[in-house]
């Protein structure tokens, strides 16, 4: 950065200010997970403690909500990755009737506001007398994650050289064998990226879930419900742990990608 102009330095500083602004609520969340508070509200700093890490699962409803969130995210991610990878392969590799309509639907699913998606799903479930529970949440989460998996897998498929698969077939591999030993390893980074995105979207979702949850409560729903009475410090701790695990996975993924190339 030798000879950097004054304006560039100013922009550099400005970029850091924006980063600090974006990170400040996270820092506060982490810090107040260590707050030795005595009253119900967690608003002033009263000393350092690790108590909330020890009492992490002492609020039964919150623990159930967290478990629901993780189970729903896991199941919906598995479904989304399987059917989304299939569609990504079809769109990236094949010509077929209805491809234009399919592309439009994939785009529509990404761009529909969450609120409208949740409202329309509830209209369907109400019209069909479908009881709302964890299953309707899973169905909805697959719907809003699907397009993201399709897009990331398709992006990977179009960079794939078709002659590799042809070579495998010429050497006597079955269609399934070719897919498992040639195609799937080659598109794996796209599939994994789609899976992580889909898991993260599911864990994070409040709006759509709030329409289709029935009496099942997830982590984000529980927190919003607790805003009026005061957020317990355990929520900060759970948020901190989710944040830490997510960042670790992202860094490990970046390192692995760099090593591969």
């Amino acid at each position, binding site marked *: 950065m030798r000879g950097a102009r004054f304006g560039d330095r100013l*922009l*550099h500083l400005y*970029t850091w200010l*924006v*980063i600090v*602004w*974006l990170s*400040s*609520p*996270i820092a*506060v969340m982490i810090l107040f997970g260590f707050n030795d508070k005595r009253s119900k509200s967690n*608003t*002033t*700093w009263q000393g350092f403690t690790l108590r909330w890490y020890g009492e992490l699962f002492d609020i039964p409803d919150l623990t159930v909500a967290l478990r629901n969130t993780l189970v729903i995210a896991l199941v919906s991610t598995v479904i989304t990755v*399987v*059917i*989304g990878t*299939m*569609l990504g*392969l*079809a*769109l990236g590799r094949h*010509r*077929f009737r209805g491809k234009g309509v*399919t592309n*439009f*639907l*994939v*785009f529509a*699913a990404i*761009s*529909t*506001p*969450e*609120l409208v*998606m949740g*409202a*329309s*799903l509830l209209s*369907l479930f109400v*019209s*069909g007398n479908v009881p709302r529970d964890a299953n309707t949440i899973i169905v909805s989460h697959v*719907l809003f994650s*699907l397009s993201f998996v399709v897009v990331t897998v398709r992006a990977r498929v179009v960079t794939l050289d078709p002659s590799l698969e042809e070579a495998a077939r010429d050497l006597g591999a079955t269609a399934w064998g070719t897919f498992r030993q040639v195609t799937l390893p080659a598109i794996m980074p796209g599939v994994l990226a789609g899976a992580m995105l889909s898991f993260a979207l599911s*864990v994070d979702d*409040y*709006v759509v879930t709030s*329409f289709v949850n029935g009496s099942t409560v997830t*982590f*984000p729903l529980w*927190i*919003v419900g607790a*805003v009026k009475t005061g*957020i317990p410090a355990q929520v900060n701790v759970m*948020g901190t742990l*989710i*944040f830490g695990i*997510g960042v670790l996975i*992202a860094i490990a993924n*970046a390192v692995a990608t760099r090593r591969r190339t």
Partner: protein
Amino acid sequence: MRRLTPYLLALPSWMWLAIFLVVPMAAMASVSLQTGNAIDGFAMTFSFSNYADAIGAYSPQLLRSLLYGGLATVAMLVIGYPVAYWIAFKAGHRKSVYLFLLLLPFFVSFVLRTISWNFLLSDNGILFGTLKDWGLLPADFHVLATTFAVVGGLTYNFLPFMILPIYVALERVDPRVVEAAQDLYATRAAAFRRVVLPLSLPGVFAGVLMTFVPATADPINAAILGGTSNTMIGNIIQTEYLTNLDYPTASALSFTLMAVLLVGIFVYARALGTENVLEAAAR
């Protein structure tokens, strides 16, 4: 068999999108024209007046949502463009580090981030409470439950979605094109205005689309930061659906919101001279 392959691969997703995206829209269209109540049930009466009634009752919230969404989008553009510019042209080999730092908030749930702001900005919290104790702020100073808090929260929550597409567009600009402009005696400002800015417009377009629509329809920021006087249309739709069980009004409002957003997108696309909205958005 080989000719059937793409259809078999697409079939599960087609069914999912048809049953849970297309059919629900039809169901919502149908519900929006029905009358009745949650106890006796609803019946189709083709009452288009549901729309007039819903819009008549909630036009302030609808207009407020568009205003807040628009203000937040402009704020994101103004705040985010210089960041995207600096990272694309000046961050060198550290580009991915800066992008990662910008994405850090996404590792904390949206709801929790917003609550964290509620906590930071609370009237007697760690920020304002301290400043009030020092006598630097009047005792009745507050930010929560104001327009500023809601628009600020929306700006905060969606900012990375504005920065990323602009960054992608700027990153594609060949630095030699800028050098060529300067060799031809363009000033730095002129080179930016006539070369870099036009080349980054597809990114700006995508960024605005990715932020304006979710910001306008977002119910969380208004609920957590807005108090009682900043209700947005998202809160109304949630309440009508989930608390009042007035499905026809809620459905009519949802459709109105979507129609308004779609019209907005097309007008905006026309104004920017983009031929194909879908194509630009997909980029």
